[in-house]
């Protein structure tokens, strides 16, 4: 499902060129759950951004559902994302001007799906927010906002779901609820799940666990 070979990412800073990813080889199969853990600044989020096609690598290959996304331009990658990829972010990334329901509908509308509303209502109900359709993000708690984000991620029924520190901004109890939802829905929908986290308990729930250290990735035994 996801495969990388010799993935390298360099960025230029004022002083010198910095190599953030130093030849990553990785393979995650369809329906698997994988966690990438590591210290701050180790390159986890950069890798996630590349795997999700949000950014282009300096060199190396990334294959997503059989498509080598390195050769795609930004717009082609966007189309691929709309068809195959979902996201859950640490800071939720809900649009403040949109209600909970509209936030969930947004990717469906962008993909031109007709039954956007019904589908979104369904997913919001599944994350326990049937009473919160017309609430704006600012009136929701952190946990509720992340549940809206999860509903949004699953609503477009992606093949792969990327989650960047999904519990990073939540307290332990709320975090646990969100994690249950994430894994529960993942199982029901058969999605491939790739998450980046500091949280070892969360990482241990995944079938595979990778450790990122200074741009190098190793699979934990």
């Amino acid at each position, binding site marked *: 499902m996801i495969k990388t070979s010799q993935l390298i990412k360099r960025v230029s800073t004022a002083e010198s060129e910095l190599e953030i990813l130093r030849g990553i080889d990785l393979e995650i199969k369809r329906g698997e759950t994988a966690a990438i853990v590591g210290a701050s600044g180790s390159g986890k*989020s950069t890798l*996630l*951004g590349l795997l*999700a096609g*949000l*950014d282009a690598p300096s060199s190396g290959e990334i294959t997503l559902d059989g498509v080598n996304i390195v050769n795609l331009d*930004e*717009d082609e990658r*966007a*189309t*691929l*994302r*709309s*068809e195959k*990829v979902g*996201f859950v*972010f640490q800071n939720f*990334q809900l*649009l*403040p*001007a*949109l209600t909970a329901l*509209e936030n969930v509908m*947004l*990717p469906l*509308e*962008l*993909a*031109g799906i007709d039954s956007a509303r019904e589908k979104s209502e369904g997913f919001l109900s599944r994350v326990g927010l049937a009473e919160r359709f017309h609430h*704006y993000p*600012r009136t929701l708690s952190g946990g509720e906002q992340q549940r809206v984000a999860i509903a*949004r991620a699953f609503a*477009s029924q992606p093949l792969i779901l990327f989650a*960047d520190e999904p519990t990073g901004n939540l307290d332990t109890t709320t975090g646990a609820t969100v994690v249950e939802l994430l894994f529960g829905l993942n199982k029901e929908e058969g999605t491939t799940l790739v998450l980046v986290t500091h949280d070892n308990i969360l990482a241990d729930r995944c079938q595979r666990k990778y450790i990122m250290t200074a741009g190098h990735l190793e699979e934990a035994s």
Partner: protein
Amino acid sequence: MTSPVIASIRLLIRDWRGGELGVLFSALLLAVSVVVAISGFVNRLQFNLERESASFLAADLVVSSSKPIPAPWMDEASASGLAQGETITFSSMVISADDEMFLASVKAVGGAYPLRGALSVDKGLSQASTDIPEPGTVFLAPRLVQQLSASVGDEVYVGDATLTVAGTLLSEPDSTTGFFGYGPRLVMNTANLDETGVVQPGSRVTYRLLVAGETDDLTTYREWVEPQLVQGQRLSSVDESQPGIGATLDRARGFLLLAGSLGVMLAAAAILVAARRFGERHTDQVAVMKSLGATRATIRQLYAFSLAWLGLISIGLGSGIGWLAQSAMFNALAGQLPSEITRIGIAPYITGAVTAFVCIGFFAWPPLARLGGVSPLRVIRREETIADATRSTDLVLGTASLGLLMLWYSSDWKLTGALIGSIAITVGLGFLVAQTLLTGSRQVGSSAGSVWRLALAGMQRRGTSSAFQVVIFGIAIMLLLVLTSVRTSLLDQWRLQIPEGTPNHFILNVAPTDESSLLTFFAERDIEVGELYPAARGRVMAVNGQPLPDWDRFEEGARQREANFTSTDTAPEGNKIVSGAWWEVGTELSLVSLEDGFADDIGAKVGDMLTLRIAADEFSVEVASIREVNWESMQPNFFVIFPDKLLEQFPNTLFTSFYLEPGEKYRLGELLDVMPTLTIIELDVAIQEIKTIIDQVSQAIELVLLIVLVAGALVLIAGVSASVDERLHESAILRALGAGRGTLSGAVAIEFATMGSLAGILAILGSETAGWVLQTQMLDLEYQIQWVLWPMGIALGAVIIGTLGTYACRRVVSVPPLQVLREL
């Protein structure tokens, strides 16, 4: 993908609900409303003023000729759909049934005369009329009624015709055209002209064809007639025949155009600020949308359609508001303006719509177009920003488009150039000064107290965006200063043009022997009389020995000119010597000073020898100087002036001017009883009308200034609101760290006041430049550096921007920090 049209409507509704659109929409609405209101108002006002001033001619256009008007000219006027009338004026003795005689200025009128304005006639027994006299009847001016002791129903004789007095002529619209008919007026019907037998080949008669109609038809007609004019024939509109009114109207038009253009610029500035803020606020939204699969094209399409909708709504709503505003302004002047109802027409709406689309295309679109380039990676890394590289291109394109828009709007490249130039100066200097001072202020700030340190550090941290704000504030204040100072100069100049007590009557043909009795007459009645000038009718025959062709030969170029010659040893007030020098008092040299237009007509320059003739005497003089004369002044002006000693040798009469209160017109009759040979020219009605027009345009200008001031205030508010988000976030952090509300609001106030005073400095530099160009090049006014504006501009900038900023940022210090941090 859902249709972009529907998606964009959805985006618009959601943004509106979320409060994101407020500022941008208000700015667009403001642009359209201001443009529609001002151009609608200007159109209506101009139409009304032109109609009113056209009454000075009793027509929109007049062809005058010393020979009868060719019949094809009248046919062409009819064919062009123009209304027409005619007048034929000449001097003739009028004799009453009791054999009283008086030299009158006779005007035979026919056709649809008067085409503009109206006659006012008292027919006795409280009957008033505005119709022209029926064939066989005449109207007499009050002075003629008095001189002839005639009353309504009496018979009078003009040449061989016997005509019945049908009324007293109180006023006629074209009373001031043709000063040569010196006597009091008699108006008759052209039907009786032949009967009089007065008009013979060689008699001194002026024929006028009057036409009126739509501007386009008039232009066509003018273009058709003009090439056919020969010597002795003239085509004139009110601008040409009444330089005083023409110049007043021109300046008023210029000012209103300027005001309208400033309205557009201010609106564009507001849109620029608002769109930048809108774009910044949407950056995160676009990053999320892109991470969810929206392509660059989708994003651009979405925002392009949203803007188009926003434009359409603004045009619709703004046109409505503009219409209401112009009609409110017009009603406010209702008592002052002629009652004729005019519609605003389609043009202001088109101007409003074009303005909206230019503003959207060149000011609102660029920051939104850049949203397409937002990296989706921003959802993970907030520091990912959009490339700024295109900003300077935006600025150049924006300024160019604004220039073209203004050029289209004002059709005046000087005005456009002056404004664009001064804006370029403000922007260029602005970024330079702002950046330098902002850096400097940080150094000052680091040694200052905590509130100041906070304020100056904040300003410096926001470097470019602070500079941008300073420049926007500077532009807004500059444009308002320009408008205010031009308005002040204009009103002052108008007040000076016809001050209270301007002489409204002229007396000609005073015999030198009558001088003392004339002065006694006025002294006894406590009427102030002007200086007495000698006058002799003379003719220029040759220049440097080359005889000039006489007037009646149809030749181009220099020709003989007849004029009233006068003498004085001191250069007349208000005249400007453009070449040569004035002579010494008491000189016995044979010198002459010429008016510049007159000198052109005869083809003379300083140092040339002129051969002149007064009565039968020919003599030679050298041209000592050439003068520019202010024909708008309503003061006695002269084409040809000699030294006193020279004119003394020739027979001459005297002439003077005086001011008569409206209730004292009967004094004229008394004067003529004492000295019946005097000729009196009455200018009181004309002067009064010019004053009325000046009053009207002055009020209109004040109203328009008010609207533009409101537009300027909105730009300042938009500019101030632009940085509120960032400040909210910072202040939340600072408050969380323990900064007091007093410290924070103090810092905000100091920051805005500092930016305000910087903006004040820029504004003054820009406005002095623009003011100089506009006043000297466009409005033809004297320019003076307004030193008083300097400290005022800086202080006002600090106070206004400081207050507005503190007010707009009140949430910054009042909202609980936790709420802010959660919202962001």
